[in-house]
């Protein structure tokens, strides 16, 4: 008999997936239920919001580094 595990299927770009894998690794594998393929994975439902938050923070940081002194009118400095 197969087993059913509750979770959230996340479909994303492989580059985004790589970041999710890193977040999971850095947090004692608290997020991922199963790594399916290069652009699919299953995460814990209860941890989805936190994962999204962490991912957005990392992406923001990456963007800032890429932009560097490309000044944004909304962002002073």
């Amino acid at each position: 008999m197969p087993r059913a595990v509750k979770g959230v299927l996340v479909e994303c770009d492989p580059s985004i997936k790589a970041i999710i894998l890193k977040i999971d690794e850095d947090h004692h594998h608290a997020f991922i239920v199963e790594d399916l393929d290069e652009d699919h994975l299953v995460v814990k439902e209860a941890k989805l919001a936190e994962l999204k938050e962490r991912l957005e923070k990392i992406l923001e940081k990456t963007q800032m580094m890429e932009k560097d002194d490309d000044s944004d009118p909304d962002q002073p400095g």
Partner: protein
Amino acid sequence: VVDQIRLWQIEGERMKATQGFLFKDFTTAQDFEDVARYAGELGVLKWKSVQKRCMFVTRHEQIAEWLKRRAAGGKR
């Protein structure tokens, strides 16, 4: 019930999250194929891998019922 799908717009990258269930640990390839076909017919199959012998479905109740019925009926 419509699948709960959320789209995240993250810096131009699209990320889709779908709630559901991961079915795994199928005993045989045939068992996997049977369930995958049934899930497909129900329209609840979101992702599957023959290699990994696992699949993601948006609803599990009908599949669980079907597996139970099949086990009870001794159908192979």
